[in-house]
């Protein structure tokens, strides 16, 4: 390298104008942006449809692609990633798997074809092998209003496509399927509930808008209903009522046990 070139380079380095900012100011600004995004868009589900953003995008893609026939998971993931969700493919596939596993979610929104993993912790097959389609629950209750004009659509990240802002569902999926998520400084956990009980409760509340918790709990619905038939243990109805009225509490779960005796 010639000497004049080096000098020119050094001059450009010296002339460079650099702003100064304090560590505390810049890091709290950056962290503030990030934590806000995590809480509002990633970790905590929406009340209206009980879905996180990834899940909603997957369901939306599938509502166009795989309502009745099985389609390759890789295709669904690719479509979701390219059109709406500019993040890693693995995290999208894992979200898809969660929605399809009957032991992860009370009423699966997706039916999977192939190895979607097991309760013992076996990994699901790679997304090029497995296939998926929407379950009857999603097509009948989730998507009935999506394409009929009452959903709000917003433009996607690069203004080329439209995605639903919320999915208008027939009944509150958040209560039925529950949700869990950890954001920054906040977290949410809701157990799943029985579909029939929730529907009964809703009818009751619609008929009697002033209904109290006493009228419903123990009569119309009986607490959480977990995907793996775990039994909820509580001292009396009052303690369960306390949890539901305060929105906070501890549920003790007794797992179903099956003892296999050794044949002598």
């Amino acid at each position, binding site marked *: 390298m010639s000497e004049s070139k080096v000098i020119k380079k050094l001059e450009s380095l010296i002339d460079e104008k650099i702003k100064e900012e304090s*560590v505390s*100011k810049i890091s709290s600004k950056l962290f503030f*942006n*990030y934590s806000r995004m995590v809480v509002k868009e990633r970790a905590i589900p929406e009340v209206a449809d009980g879905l996180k953003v990834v899940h909603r995008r997957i369901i939306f893609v599938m509502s166009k692609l795989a309502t009745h026939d099985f389609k390759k998971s890789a295709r669904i993931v690719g479509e979701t990633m390219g059109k709406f969700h500019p993040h890693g493919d693995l995290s999208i596939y894992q979200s898809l798997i969660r929605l399809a596993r009957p032991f992860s979610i009370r009423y699966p929104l997706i039916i999977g074809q192939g190895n979607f993993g097991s309760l013992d912790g076996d990994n699901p097959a790679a997304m090029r092998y497995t296939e998926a389609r929407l379950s009857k629950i999603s097509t009948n209750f989730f998507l009935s209003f999506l394409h009929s004009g009452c959903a709000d659509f917003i433009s996607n990240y690069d203004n080329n496509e439209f995605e639903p802002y919320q999915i208008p569902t027939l009944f509150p999926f958040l209560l039925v399927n529950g949700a869990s998520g950890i954001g920054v400084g906040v977290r949410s956990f809701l157990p799943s509930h029985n579909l029939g009980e929730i529907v009964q409760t809703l009818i009751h509340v619609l008929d009697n808008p002033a209904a109290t918790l006493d009228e419903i709990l123990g009569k119309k619905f009986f607490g959480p209903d977990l995907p793996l038939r775990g039994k909820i243990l509580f001292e009396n109805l009052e303690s369960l009522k306390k949890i539901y009225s305060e929105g906070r509490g501890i549920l003790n779960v007794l797992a179903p046990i099956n003892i296999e005796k050794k044949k002598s």
Partner: protein
Amino acid sequence: MLSVINRYINEAKLLGFKEKLTFSDVKQSLVLVVSVLVSSPQFEGQTKRRVRSVVASKMITKFFNSALESYLLKNSLQAGKIVDIIFSQARRRISILELKDLQSKVSSTLKMDIFQLPGKLASATIKSPLVSELFIVEGDSAGGTAKMARDRSFQAVLPIRGKILNCERVFPKSKTLLNKEISDVVSVIGTGIAEKFSMEKLRYNKIIILADADLDGDHIKVLLITLFMNLFPEIVKQKKLFVSFPPLYSVPLKKKVDGRRVHFFFSDQELEEFFQKNDLIRSKASIRRFKGLGEMNPEQLRQTAMSPATRRLVCLTVDDKAFATLANLMGKNIETRRSYSFGNSGIALETETEFEKRSESVKQGERI
């Protein structure tokens, strides 16, 4: 004696310590005086440190163990105190062991790194601490672009993968070196850490954090700032750490404006101003929003983030609140973090995220 105490702990259900006790735990904390008279005693060694009569030791064990057991059972208050002391001794012994283990691991990584820089580092030809620059780049895909875009004479590139460890929550700090990404950064910088830190060994004039312009990129920037503030506070104090802010938008135009066809903008405000100043209609231009560095061509990256003539750097300075702020944001205490981002003002939940901004635009009419 150990067996008696173990049995007592089991029976009294004094939990709180899972590891196995050793005789040394008991020996260091309890002093017992036993008076014994033995005819023709045998001693151990030249210095006669211990009595070693087999008959005597058997007898003592027999009487003493039962006496100790009945004492422990009768005086539960004292027994509890004794057990507490033994537990604290045992805990101390185990933490010393762990520390030794950690030290050997850390020193071995340090030794290794002096001779061996990580393979991922693309080093510069001029290796002078007066001019060289180190770019720490988010992700391997952006790392490749940065390697092509740099001026190889004085700019080095180190790609790191994804979100690195949060150093604020690791204690002791040397434990962070067990993490591959962090030990890579430490060895590339060359100064060493803690007591071995020496500013003279710093291999670069500027250390520049280059992460995506999206919100995960913001998180990575904070994590890297935390790393430097924890392991190399001196580097930050001497204003050697910089953050590069890559542009958010690129706007290719049909005609040249200000001598260029493609313009880059670092904020929404700049974009607005540009359109107003030059009488251009925004909807006609194809505005492209960058989501990651990997999206850019090397030429674009050089122009916007790496070339000293055109890039935008922010130099970090340490103020009085710096350490406290990071401890609040990244530390173990959830309450302070929550109040920091939500409680103080409630702004966090009121200000709109990008997702919500987009939703406003459509809600006002154009449904499909």
